Structures are given as structure tokens and as C-alpha cells.
């Protein structure tokens, strides 16, 4: 297998690079590349494979811990100098960096490659019609259910067929049946119940716009009737029906609860396939639910790469970004860290092996048909922050409409600087 050969060679090159501190020869260029803080064995081999293919370029990657990634990039970019050359971009922040002059238009660089990407991934890297960041990974969400808990409660397992996906209206009574306050079991939970990444799919499935068409207007949209109605439904999961654990935000606790059999159904990312397997849960997967009156919508998007406009190594930086769009590179990356790929070819080549499992069949369907990127606005980070706080307050019982109206006012205030 070709990819195995590549990864073995890359691994050796990577080890050599780690043990012997590389010294630059006269013709070599070193690229400064801030990257996510994934384990070294998932990062270095990818860089080493690029170096093997481009002997005149060295990649000096920096593995920044998640909590410090965005902060550190802000400090570096605020300096507005030649470093970094290339950097990892959280997909929905593409517009933010582009509007502030921190990204190069990659249109000319990737002109010949555009058709090879999944359209939803390209859309996440685009702003005002231009491609500013090249996707290297995407994401999708699945409904994970604990087979034993469903069987014990006499609840039929949901179908894995996207054509027969659950409606939210059908999911609620199932979750109510599965909830058992006495033994501390909850029927259903979102994995990240206050992250707009995951929750925006609820109003979007309802058919509600989540931000004005100009990408800068929140009032009238964030607190519009569709948002209020769909998020009232969301709030009731926690406050009225109590089928979801309230006030659990972002610390991996939901995953642990599912692993311990304390949540029967979790809507979560594909990364859980491996995690729940390790936890020893007998689980099945089904597609993301939707509102009967609306349409199926799934969260998507992940990491991209972009080029600093002030780099002194533009040619080398472009070579790196272009290399990350070739199939063997993305296959190696898939083997190192199994994010859903962004290249159609990778899906095709692996359809009989990696992606033969039913879970990946669902993911592939979602990425092509239902994946909806987060709104392309230069103020995404501000938007996300205020919306997240609003969602947290709603779980605590705050009235939906005034909470959203306040969030909309705050977002509008922060958006003024982009007008």
C-alpha cells in the first residue's frame, strides 16, 4: 500500500529529524509554522514527509496547546512582521484573519485544486468570494447511543440510514423514556452543549437565519423568531424535560458520562468513535436529528492552513500549502490523526477500507449533503463568545428572548469595527 510506504519513510525521516537537531545548509529555507499541540508523533511525520519531498525546505513547526493557540497567534500576528510563514487556522476564524490582513488570497495558488475539495470545507475557508485558508480537516457529528440502555428501556435503536434519520420531535420521547433520575441516567446530551459549533445546527434545521446576510448584523437575527423558538426547544431539554444534564460545558465530562453509562444518547463528533470504543461501551451510531418542519443540517469545519502576507518565504510557504492539498499527504495525515478528510479522492481511495464502517458512510453523506459551515463573518470569535454565554445562561434558566436580545446587542457593538 502506497500510504503505508509513505508513512514508514516519513516516520524514519521524522525520527532522524528529532534525534539530530537539523542544521540548515546554505540553500535551505526554514518555515516558521505554528501548529496545533497534537502529540509529536502525529505532527512531525507529516512535516518530515514534506521535507523529504522538498529537500530545500525545513518546517519548524511549533505545537501550541489548544488553550494558547489563538492567543499566541494573536500576539505573533499583532507584531505584523515576517513570522510566522504559514499557520494553522481554525476554519471559522478565516474571515477574522482575512479582514484584519493576516491571510493571503490562496485562489491563485490552489486554482487547479479547488474541485478536489469538499465544497463545505472550501466554503469555510472563503470570505467575500476568495479562498483565504486551505482546509486540511473537517468534522461531522453523529448520534451515539448505548445499546444496552436502549434495550433495557425498551427503546428501538434509531436507523443508521440518513434517509430515515430521527426528527427532534421523535427523539424527545425516546430521551424521556431513557432518563432515570434515580440512577442518575440522562436520556440525551449534546457533547458541547454551549458551543455554537454544535448548537447552531438546531436553529439552522428549524430554518432560522443565525446572523444577518451581511455577516455583521445580529439584532433581528440572533434574537429573531426562529432562533427564539428553536432555542426555547433546546432550553426545555435541560429545564422542563430534564433529559439532558445542564451546566456541563466543555470539560470532557459528557464523554465520561456516556462511557460510564450515565447518558443513553450523545450527539458528538467522530473523534468519539475511538474514545467510546476504548471506554468499552457497546454503542451504535445514527445520523444527526432534524426538525420535522425544517431540513437536516449538520455542524462541520475544522482546521485549515493559511499564509502570512508578510512572509519572506512566499514561494516555500505556497509549496507547503499546495503539498497539503495532494492526496498522499492527506492520506498520511488521515493515518496520523483520523479527521474526516477534505479531499474527495481520499474518501474514494479509502471507501473499502477506512471508511467501510457504517459510521463513516453516514459522515460521508452528511459532508456532501447536510454539512453547513458556521457563518462567514470577520467577527466570528466575538459572535461565538456572546452566543456561548447566552446558551450557558439559558441552560441555567434565563428567559430565551431577552438573553438572545442582549447577546445580539453585544455582538452588534463588537461588529461595528468591521463595518
Amino acid at each position: 500500500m502506497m500510504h503505508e510506504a509513505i508513512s514508514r519513510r516519513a516516520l524514519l525521516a521524522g525520527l532522524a529529524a528529532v534525534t539530530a537537531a537539523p542544521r540548515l545548509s546554505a540553500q535551505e529555507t526554514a518555515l516558521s509554522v505554528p501548529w496545533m499541540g497534537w502529540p509529536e508523533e502525529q505532527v512531525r511525520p507529516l512535516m518530515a514527509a514534506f521535507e523529504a519531498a522538498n529537500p530545500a525546505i525545513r518546517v519548524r513547526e511549533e505545537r501550541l496547546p489548544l488553550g494558547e493557540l489563538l492567543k499566541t497567534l494573536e500576539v505573533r500576528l499583532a507584531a505584523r512582521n515576517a513570522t510566522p510563514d504559514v499557520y494553522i487556522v481554525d476554519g471559522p476564524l478565516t474571515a477574522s484573519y482575512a479582514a484584519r490582513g493576516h491571510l493571503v488570497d490562496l485562489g491563485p495558488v490552489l486554482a487547479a485544486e479547488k474541485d478536489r475539495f469538499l465544497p463545505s470545507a472550501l466554503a469555510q475557508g472563503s470570505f467575500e468570494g476568495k479562498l483565504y485558508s486551505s482546509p486540511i480537516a473537517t468534522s461531522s457529528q453523529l448520534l451515539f447511543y448505548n445499546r444496552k440502555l436502549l434495550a433495557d428501556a425498551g427503546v428501538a435503536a434509531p436507523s443508521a440510514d440518513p434517509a430515515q434519520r430521527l426528527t427532534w420531535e421523535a427523539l424527545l420521547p425516546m430521551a424521556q423514556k431513557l432518563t432515570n433520575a434515580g440512577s442518575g441516567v440522562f436520556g440525551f446530551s449534546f457533547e458541547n452543549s454551549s458551543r455554537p459549533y454544535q448548537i447552531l445546527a438546531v436553529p439552522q434545521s428549524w430554518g432560522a437565519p443565525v446572523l444577518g446576510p451581511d455577516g455583521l448584523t445580529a439584532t433581528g437575527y440572533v434574537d429573531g423568531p426562529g432562533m427564539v423558538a428553536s432555542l426555547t426547544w433546546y432550553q426545555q431539554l435541560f429545564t422542563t424535560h430534564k433529559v439532558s444534564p445542564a451546566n456541563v460545558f466543555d470539560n470532557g465530562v459528557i464523554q465520561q458520562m456516556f462511557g460510564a453509562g450515565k447518558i443513553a444518547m450523545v450527539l458528538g463528533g467522530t473523534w468519539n468513535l475511538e474514545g467510546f470504543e476504548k471506554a468499552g461501551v457497546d454503542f451504535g451510531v445514527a445520523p444527526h436529528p432534524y426538525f420535522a418542519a425544517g431540513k437536516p443540517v449538520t455542524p462541520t469545519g475544522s482546521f485549515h492552513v493559511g499564509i502570512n502576507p508578510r512572509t519572506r518565504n512566499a514561494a516555500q510557504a505556497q509549496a507547503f500549502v499546495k503539498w497539503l492539498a495532494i492526496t498522499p499527504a492527506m492520506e498520511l495525515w488521515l493515518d496520523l490523526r483520523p479527521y474526516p478528510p477534505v479531499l474527495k479522492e481520499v474518501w474514494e481511495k479509502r471507501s473499502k477500507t477506512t471508511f467501510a464502517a457504517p459510521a463513516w458512510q453516514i459522515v460521508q453523506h452528511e459532508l456532501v449533503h447536510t454539512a453547513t459551515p458556521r457563518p462567514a463573518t470577520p467577527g466570528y470569535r466575538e459572535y461565538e463568545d456572546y452566543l456561548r454565554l447566552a446558551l450557558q445562561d439559558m441552560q441555567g434558566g434565563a428567559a430565551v428572548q431577552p438573553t438572545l436580545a442582549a447577546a445580539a446587542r453585544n455582538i452588534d457593538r463588537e461588529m461595528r469595527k468591521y463595518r
Partner: protein
Amino acid sequence: MLRSRGVHWWFLAPALAGLAIFRLLPILIALVGSLFGVSIRGDVRFVGLDNFVVLFTDPEFWASVRVTLLFNVIINPLQLFVALGLALLVRPPGRGIIAFRTVLVLPMSVSTALSAILFGLFLEKNMGPMNGLLEWIGIGAQPFYRDMYQALPTLIGVATWKGAGYWMLFLLAGLYAIPESVNEAAAIDGASRWQRFRHVTWPLMKRPMAFVLVVDTIANFLFFAPVYILTSGGPAGSTNLLMFQAYQAAFTHFDPGRALAISTVILFIILVFVAIEFRMFRPAEGS
């Protein structure tokens, strides 16, 4: 005081050079920066006091000032007295005291961010052992940092858990500096234990206590990682410390002018607090 004929510069130069380059110059840049606005394309423009005017007319800012003052009025005396109590407890030799002393300082090597992650899990409602314990002994599970009345006390508790042993060390060094003979003389004169504490230990501990109170106050005004990790300023603004506001302005809302204006306000509030504290603990002359 002694006249030095210029030799003091040799003593001061290395430290002052380091502070000037790596602290005071960046601080000066930050203070001046609060008078500028930065456009999203990075163009810098003088705006005078505009950043402060916007800040002072913002009700969220004043709410945050109130939370910050409340937090500091409670946490600083609390940590000082807990640390002093612990120092007095471990000062005299005794069986196993070294072991107790080591246990008390253990948390100082847990970084602030990690202490927040640790307590986030330890006090979590569904999977945290603390709530299991409270449930088991019949008190019932508590929301801790997820409740608008418990969140600030929880943060104060986490900070004190981490800090008490650390501040104890400074006071312990101070206690060791009190000559044994002073205490013995007082004991021979028939002074009670309280009298000896009040008239011998307390006056001689003023310098170390001033140090702990001042440094602790500064540290607590700049405290924010647990807010960021555990509460995001909530619930309902109950933990919305100024420092968190400054952080949000700089790194989430991309508004450097506002961030530096808040930082400047923090600096001035600290100056007022520290000036008062120095006055309170001024050692009696000639002691």
C-alpha cells in the same frame, strides 16, 4: 540609613536594567497604548482618553469593578490570616511537623490554570468526587462554580487552596527571624501566650505581613485563569473580574485599546490598595 557615595548604583544596576527592559518599558508602551485606537487593518491612531470615556460609560465595566473589589476585599485578608495561622501552627518543632509543612505547600506547584482544571473536575456535578462525598454524608450535591451565589466563593476557595501554603512560607521565614531570646524574656516576665503574640510576634511580623499582603493583593487583582477556564465571568456576571474583561477585550473581541484601558485602570486600583496597605503595616520607627 547609610550614605553610600554612589556605590548603590553598582548594587542596583543589574536588577534595574532587567526590570527597565523587560517590565517597565513594556508597561510604558501599554500605558501609552491605552490612548490609541487600532483599526482592524492595524492602523494606529491617537484617540486621547476615548477608550476611557467608552469604558466609564459602560455599565458592564462598573459591574465588573464591583465584582473585582468584592473579590479582593474578601480574598486578601482571608489569605493573609490563613497563612499566618498556618505559619504559627508549623513554627514550633514537633512530631511530624515537617511532614505537615510539606503537605501544606504542595499546591503551590500546581499552576493556576491546572488548579482550575483540577477543581473543575473535582467539583463537577455529575462526575466529580466532591459532590459524591457531599451526597453521601447527606449535605447534598452543590453546583459550586455553576451557581451565581457560589461561584465567587468557589474561586476564592480554589485560589486560597493554592496560595495559603505559599504565603505561609514567607511568614514562616519572618517567624524564624524573631530571636528566640525575645520570646523567652517575655515568657520569664510572665506574659501570657496572647500577650506575647500581641506585643512581641505581631509587631515584629509587620514587615513580612506587609510583604505578603501587598504581593498577594497584586496577584489577586491579576487573577483570571480560573475565571476563563471555569466560569467565563458567569453565572450572571457573578465572577466577571476586570482582569477577565481585559483578557476578553484583547484576545476575544480584538479591541486592544479597551484592553489596555482596563489594564491601566487595574494598575491604578492596585496602586491605591497597595498604598493603603503600606500605611497599615508601616513598622514602628526604631524597632
